[in-house]
């Protein structure tokens, strides 16, 4: 039988129809069949109706990025095809009930509900669909059974049995279609694990000793919160749904003050309410870690969509002048590592540290290797009777004590203060304290993360990305295979690492790619290095880039030459 290298399956239906269930079970079956998988979803801000879709890339090689191409489209409601038409091509196979698919050239009619009814209830249609897909791709049938059972494990024996039977029937149908969509298996997949961006942020936090989270729900950041709540017992995490974001941020700062390691997870609108608290953290030199899952604004914007337009917000959040660090993970692995790093850096320098993700990264998942161990660096000292919280030191960092640990008193003040933390209006003390806070910047810059370079050393064109566009750009440039074009990705966007300069200096031409309308990162680079950053590829329709879109945009830029 002819074997393909990769299949792209898209599931599309109304909210509430259960595409999510099919996706959740299917990705596990794929993995258990020793195949790589990447999944990402786009959905409307509603609980019922509309049209949502999930893209699954199934491959015998690692896959990490969003694509437009659809090989197999599973349609569950009427407007699915209209919404996805632009992603279909001549060989796209459309699968679904007769009334939805009959007008398509390559269609396969499968009446999921009717088959489900023969097992007692229409609601088993999801399991039928899962089975059909598993059958089409000749996935491991034992894995199908096992994952269906696990998914419904809290239900009655009858329900589990009916779902398994419905899935097996679907599998049989899928096999009989003979669509020739099969892939070579890959043993090494056994050693990998499925991980989503959201879960990676949560695991990174826990790995770095996060033991306090207070937040207020807001898409797309909420899953990080719920993942941490699930680990509250096993990892000793204090979890509090605050009355609002203002309370959440103040709580997390106060928790750090008292000796915890705290996180807030929010989105742009929620973070806007936290800006004053960020300023408080800057003044009292108490760490805070903020995970900000971006979505398109202004205001409520597109609640379930994606964008990279809150960089300026976190760069300038909070009145007054104080240092901060901003990370922007480009992959699920980086989401884990940078979140963990954020805790250690916040603790070390006693500053706010931000992790900027977005809906696309948080809601995507793929297979990752074993996650690296992270050391928990706690910079807390036992205080003595003469303890001064804001003792002037060479590098601006005063040893941080916590109440109840030692004989000293830990006194922090949002007013300007002296070394003891006492309110003051002395001009000389003010000047000294401003300088003390800003002095920390030197070491922060020294310890910043160098951007990641991909390409050959004799490049002429440099494509610059930050955050979640990383792997999409990476795949696009790989497929282009032009050694005059290199890729520079920034996991740390602020402070802009000084080491970035040499990459820019070598390039004849630099293109910035961002998911926003004004090129916020390009503007920051311009401001930092006083260089021309006007060549930009920008997207701000709320949907993530795809490999094809990046390729097209880069080609267009090359043609302009």
């Amino acid at each position, binding site marked *: 039988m002819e074997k393909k290298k990769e299949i792209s399956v898209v599931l599309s239906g109304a909210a509430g129809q259960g595409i999510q269930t099919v996706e959740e079970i299917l990705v596990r079956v794929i993995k258990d069949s020793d195949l790589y998988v990447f999944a990402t979803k786009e959905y409307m801000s509603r609980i019922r109706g509309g049209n949502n879709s999930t893209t699954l890339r199934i491959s015998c090689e690692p896959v990490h990025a969003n694509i437009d191409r659809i090989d197999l489209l599973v349609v569950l409601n009427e407007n699915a095809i209209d919404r996805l038409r632009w992603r279909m091509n001549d060989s796209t196979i459309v699968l679904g009930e007769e009334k939805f698919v009959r007008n398509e050239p390559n269609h396969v009619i499968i009446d999921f509900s009717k088959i489900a009814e023969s097992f007692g209830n229409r609601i088993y249609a999801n399991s039928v669909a899962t089975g059909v897909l598993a059958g089409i791709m000749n996935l491991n049938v034992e894995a199908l059974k096992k994952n269906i059972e696990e998914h419904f494990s809290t239900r009655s024996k009858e329900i589990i049995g009916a779902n398994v039977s419905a899935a097996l029937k679907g599998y049989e149908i899928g096999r009989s279609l003979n669509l020739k969509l099969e892939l070579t298996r890959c043993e090494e997949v056994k050693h990998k694990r499925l991980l989503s961006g959201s879960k990676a942020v949560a695991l990174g936090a826990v790995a770095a000793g996060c033991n306090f989270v207070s937040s207020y729900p807001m898409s797309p950041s909420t899953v990080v919160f719920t993942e941490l709540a699930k680990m509250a017992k096993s990892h000793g995490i*204090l979890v509090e749904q605050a009355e609002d974001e203002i309370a959440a941020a103040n*709580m997390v700062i106060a928790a750090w003050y008292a*000796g915890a390691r705290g996180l807030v997870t929010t989105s742009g609108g929620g973070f806007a309410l936290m800006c004053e608290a960020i300023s408080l953290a800057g003044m009292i030199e108490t760490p805070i870690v903020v995970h900000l899952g971006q979505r398109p604004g202004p205001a409520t914007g597109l609640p379930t969509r994606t964008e990279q337009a809150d960089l300026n917000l976190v760069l300038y959040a909070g009145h007054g002048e104080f240092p901060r660090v901003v990370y922007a993970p480009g992959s699920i692995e980086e989401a884990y590592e940078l979140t963990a790093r954020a805790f250690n850096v916040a603790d070390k320098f006693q500053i706010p540290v931000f992790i900027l993700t977005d809906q696309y990264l948080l809601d995507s998942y793929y297979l990752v290797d074993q996650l690296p161990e992270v050391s928990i660096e706690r910079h807390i000292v036992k205080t003595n009777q003469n303890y001064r919280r804001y003792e002037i030191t060479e590098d601006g960092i005063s040893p941080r004590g916590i109440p*109840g*640990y030692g004989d000293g008193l830990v006194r922090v003040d949002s007013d300007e203060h002296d070394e003891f933390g*006492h309110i003051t209006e002395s001009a000389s003390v003010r000047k000294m304290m401003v300088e003390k806070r800003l002095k920390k910047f030197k070491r922060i810059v020294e310890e910043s993360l160098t951007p990641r370079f991909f390409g050959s050393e004799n490049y002429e064109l440099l494509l610059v990305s930050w955050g979640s566009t990383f792997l999409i750009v990476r795949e696009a440039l790989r497929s282009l295979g032009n050694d005059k074009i290199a890729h520079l990705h920034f996991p740390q966007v602020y402070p802009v690492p000084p080491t970035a300069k040499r990459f820019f200096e070598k390039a004849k031409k630099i293109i910035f790619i961002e998911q926003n309308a004004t090129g916020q990162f390009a503007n920051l680079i311009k401001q930092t290095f006083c260089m021309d950053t006007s060549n930009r590829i920008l997207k701000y329709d709320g949907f993530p880039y795809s490999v094809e879109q990046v390729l097209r945009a880069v080609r267009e830029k090359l043609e302009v030459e």
Partner: protein
Amino acid sequence: MFQPNDYDIPNADIAWCPGCGNFGIMRALKTALAQLNLSPQNVVIVSGIGQAAKMPQYVKAHMFNGLHGRSLPAAVAIKMANPELVVIAESGDGCSYGEGGNHFIHTIRKNPDITNIVHNNQIYGLTKGQASPTTMRGQITTLQIDGVYVDPFNPIAVAVALDASFVARTFSGYLDLTVEIFKQAIQHKGYALVDVFQPCVSFNKLNTYEWYKENTYILPDSYDPTDRVQAFRIATETKKFALGVIYKNPSKPVFEEQLIAYKTNKTPIAYRGLIA
């Protein structure tokens, strides 16, 4: 035994006006801490911003002087991270009931074991005399030049309505009463609100020492604070304001004791990994 002056901050430059009611509250607080024999190392005073919120600047204990309106979220978090500490949140009426109104409501619902002392001078002191949420109808201020035309906020009634576990009111002119109530509030297991009438001699010419004496009365010993209906009636009186412990519900679960992270391990989160 600690003495009240053990909580003095040497050479503190106190920013309150001479004659201000805040002095009485400070004296009562230091006396209560001393009588409860609490070491400064064991007490955290959390405040917002305002004249009242400067209190921890002048009391020897741990201090978290945070943002205007935000003393309660900070106090709750400190108690969560380290339940062994005695946590007192202290601020003015504007800070506590205006800017921090949402936190006031939700902290009562949570019932953490903290004490919330509100210096209620019925005016904004630090910003020089605008109406606060508790300024009385008709009172002329620097900003409400034609008199206040909205009803005052009634913190006691709100607290009773929300079934706060300890609700008291006192007057800073009555030292012994205030000390006694502070002691009870600190010892109470759960959220304790103490609203303290506090004359602002600079900006509130209506609610003076004399006014408070004439318009308040002390609840008799026979008063039963566990009777919620009666407490609500007392809380909504407007002729004369009752002083004393107005309401108490000792059977409410304490917030931090219910947290999953403390179910099997009682060590404060703050100390885990630090102290073996």
